[in-house]
């Protein structure tokens, strides 16, 4: 019961536009879009941030963030962000990429942006499928996982093993902050937000390449309810993609945070 004595303790971040998203009910992108918006709010960098959307369900991210945005070709967001950041090192540049985009077609671009230590932030949304095109197998789909392009379940002998991108990228000297988080319950959502904030701060402090991999639900393509989908994240994805800090450079550990 709303009374005069009450004040707002949480509301929609002002870095998000009022636009309604096209995401399905229960989609993790909704949560993650919001978290990025909150972090941009808290850091007060809306006006100096340039986002780069990828091709995937988040392709319209530029409609949802109230900052300058570019929409990259499928997989090439890190290259496009590199082009932007090199010319505008004074701006905060982030990419927002799905797992098909980043871990499949865009493998070369993310590996090299990381190796170069490009001073950008990558929000990597891993929902273990190609959401936008209708739930095909992604490089991140779990062994045995049934998708529209692995109708008998992912057969690792034919289709290979899922790629743990964060572990792989963490081997590169150029990287400064690489962590994996999840969104399957409010506590993890909050941890994710903190990581996103650290990643942006890494960039703002000029410390180099930062990436937050976020496990995220795609209820529609998993054929689950939103609630079941969060359980799936917790029970299936997290064991295969352990949460934690894959790489935190000393410089990042020691950085002064606002």
């Amino acid at each position, binding site marked *: 019961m709303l009374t005069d004595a009450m004040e707002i303790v*949480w509301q929609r971040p002002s870095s998000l536009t009022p636009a309604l998203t096209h995401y*399905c*009910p229960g989609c993790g992108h*909704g949560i993650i879009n919001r978290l990025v918006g909150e972090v941009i709010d808290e850091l007060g960098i809306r006006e100096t941030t340039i986002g780069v959307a990828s091709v995937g369900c988040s392709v319209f991210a530029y409609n949802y963030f109230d900052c300058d945005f570019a929409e990259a070709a499928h997989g090439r967001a890190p290259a496009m962000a590199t082009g932007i950041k090199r010319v505008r090192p004074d701006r905060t540049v982030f990419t927002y990429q799905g797992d098909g985009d980043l871990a499949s077609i865009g493998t070369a671009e993310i590996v090299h942006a990381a190796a170069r230590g490009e001073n950008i932030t990558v929000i990597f949304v891993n929902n273990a499928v190609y959401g936008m095109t209708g739930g095909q197998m992604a490089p991140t789909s779990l062994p045995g996982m049934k998708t529209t392009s692995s109708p008998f379940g992912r057969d690792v002998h034919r289709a290979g093993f899922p790629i743990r991108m964060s572990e792989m990228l963490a081997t590169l000297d150029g990287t400064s902050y690489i962590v994996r988080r999840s969104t399957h319950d409010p506590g993890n*959502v909050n941890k994710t937000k903190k990581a996103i904030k650290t990643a942006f701060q890494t960039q703002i402090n000029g410390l180099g390449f930062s990436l937050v991999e976020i496990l995220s639900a795609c209820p529609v393509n998993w054929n689950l309810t939103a609630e079941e989908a969060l359980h799936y994240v917790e029970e299936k994805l997290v064991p295969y993609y352990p949460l934690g800090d894959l790489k935190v450079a000393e410089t990042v550990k020691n950085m002064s945070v606002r």
Partner: protein
Amino acid sequence: MRGTIVIDEYRCKGCELCTTVCPKDLIHMADRFTARGYHPAVLTDPGVACTGCLLCSTICPDAAITVYREAGAKRAAAVVAPQ
């Protein structure tokens, strides 16, 4: 601590996630449809049990929930969400 929430029905997509996290079980789905064809979530809090704990707003994928608390509860503390 006393709180409440306001659900923006225009944004709510009826995913039901808020209903699964409310520790007081205060949110339920309405039978009716919104203009966009979803059953919206509604707060049913006759006992004024909501604490403004932020769990529902934290999980909501559509940023559809605004959370209020009675003044006096320290603001700063509130903005930093619980771990």
